[in-house]
């Protein structure tokens, strides 16, 4: 099999080398992506040669400023916005904060509509605003993780100041009907924000056609560097800055611009747009090998999220009677990098709020596994995962007291509910 092999240089004989050579397959692209070599190449001169401050009037400053203009254009083009509708930020989290708090502080009081499956960058921002006196509704989702536009519509009242619904969910990959939701928002004259951190470069986005007022992007999910992001703010939409200072980014995000990061992000957006025709079918092909083969070969395995309206790179499963952290550790031991929504793997020892929102109970959420593909993954790598995964699941089920014990599962589920 032609997998990427990492060799331990210190090993002696060829056999030893073969034994220590470990296959590694990265299937956690929803967490972060590698930086594309072309992106690194684009960034490098901006550390040592073109290191000027974009605000300076001299040649160094102009070089930095021109590079930023170019990057802004590339970011804008990925979502069909105008350059002057893009501000650079320090990442997806900051973009979400600037958008949501920016609208809230502008309006000073009011009512926000969001969903129960948003990323913490949105959820915790809304919770913080609740503590400041704003009111928030967290809309439920159906079992596939879809927010119903009709629920958005009926949640709107006279005090509604913002609707924020993510484009695609980072855990289960469900794509939301944001075009319909944005239409409802626009007809009611309410600004609509969407977190497109996971969907950008994988699902076409056209902020004009889709009626979007504010949209968050993050560079490190699309093969750009970490710590850079952007917020699209439609012309005419007014927000209050939350970071005050020298007035950079039209006064909305002060701080000397991270030029190398911004240049890298711009390059990543340019590549994402250019490569979408090639990348997306590739991801679909891998995903649609991974999903049916897993669900059909592993007993009591299920797909979480929407069967059709889902990110091309997302496969999210659950396996009865095993726990996700031990599953991740076992896969890691076989060189496969994945992620889980199990309580045992979270810092708060709580199951994923997304898995709870789609109606799973805690025992079911325990056995969840997220595999997220990237453009560099190969057919061979997916084949390798399909070989390893059933073995790993079987081994953990042998250890589990709940496997093939429906009565025990039910009893334990009820105990958990009593908590």
């Amino acid at each position, binding site marked *: 099999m032609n997998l990427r092999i990492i060799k331990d240089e210190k090993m002696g004989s060829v056999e030893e080398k073969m034994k220590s050579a470990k296959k590694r397959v990265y299937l956690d692209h929803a967490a972060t992506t590698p930086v594309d070599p072309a992106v690194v190449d684009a960034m490098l001169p901006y550390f040592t040669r073109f290191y000027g401050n974009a605000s300076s009037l001299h040649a160094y400053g102009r070089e930095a400023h021109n590079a930023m203009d170019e990057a802004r254009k590339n970011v804008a083009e990925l979502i069909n916005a105008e350059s002057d509708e893009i501000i650079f930020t320090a990442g997806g989290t900051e973009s979400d904060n600037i958008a949501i708090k920016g609208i809230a502080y502008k309006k000073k009081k009011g009512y926000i509509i969001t969903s129960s499956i948003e990323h913490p960058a949105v959820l915790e921002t809304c919770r913080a605003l609740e503590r400041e006196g704003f009111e928030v509704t967290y809309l439920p989702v159906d079992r596939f993780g879809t927010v119903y536009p009709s629920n958005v519509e009926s949640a709107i009242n006279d005090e509604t100041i913002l609707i924020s619904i993510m484009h695609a969910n980072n855990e289960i990959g469900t794509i939301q009907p944001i075009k319909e939701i944005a239409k409802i928002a626009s007809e009611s004259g309410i600004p609509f924000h969407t977190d497109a951190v996971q969907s950008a470069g994988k699902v076409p986005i056209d902020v004009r056609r889709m009626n979007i007022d504010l949209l968050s992007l993050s560079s490190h999910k699309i093969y750009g560097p970490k710590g850079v992001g952007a917020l699209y703010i439609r012309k005419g939409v007014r927000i209050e800055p939350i970071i005050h200072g020298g007035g950079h980014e039209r006064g909305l995000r002060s701080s000397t611009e991270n030029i190398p990061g911004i240049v890298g992000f711009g390059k990543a957006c340019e590549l994402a747009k250019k490569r979408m025709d090639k990348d997306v079918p590739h991801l679909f092909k891998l995903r649609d090998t991974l999903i049916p083969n897993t669900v059909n070969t592993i007993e009591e395995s299920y797909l979480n999220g929407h069967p059709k309206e889902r990110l091309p790179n997302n496969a999210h499963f659950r396996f009865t*009677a*095993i*726990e996700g*952290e*031990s599953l991740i*550790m*076992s896969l890691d*031991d076989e060189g496969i990098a994945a992620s889980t929504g*199990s*309580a*045992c*793997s979270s*810092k708060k*020892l*709580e*199951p994923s709020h997304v898995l709870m929102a789609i109606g799973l109970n*805690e*025992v079911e959420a*325990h056995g969840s596994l997220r595999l997220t593909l990237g453009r560099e993954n190969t057919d061979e790598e997916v084949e390798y995962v399909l070989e390893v995964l059933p073995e790993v699941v079987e081994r953990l089920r*042998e*250890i*589990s*007291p*709940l496997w093939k014990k429906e009565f*025990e599962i039910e*009893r*334990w589920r009820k*105990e*958990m509910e009593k*908590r």
Partner: protein
Amino acid sequence: MYSEKVMELFKNPRNMGEMENPDGVGTVGNPICGDLMTIYIKVDGDRLKDVKFKTFGCAAAIATSSMITELAKGKTIADALKITRDDVAEELDGLPPIKMHCSNLAADGLHAAIEGYKRKCDVERASYGMPG
């Protein structure tokens, strides 16, 4: 995050599996994160002749169950009851603080199995429950 010992026992757990005709069975659940552990014991005189486990939980939970079976095997019931979660964690060269409750589960599981043996009733049901 985990010590080598934890990883080793997670990958190659000792005394894993259901026991035929056990003298005591204890099943305890972890109310913190939702895991479940079953400990089986075979008693000879006042000694634990054999101890086995099955666990639904994280890598630390699997390693701590494996460790408690090794610690308890061959001990008298009185001595086995003295094994604490700290003993288990220590033998594993420590556990991340957030995972200490998993070793609690192992110690409780063993105690529950012994309790079931002493009461000689429907052991599994008698010992079933969540630790404090």
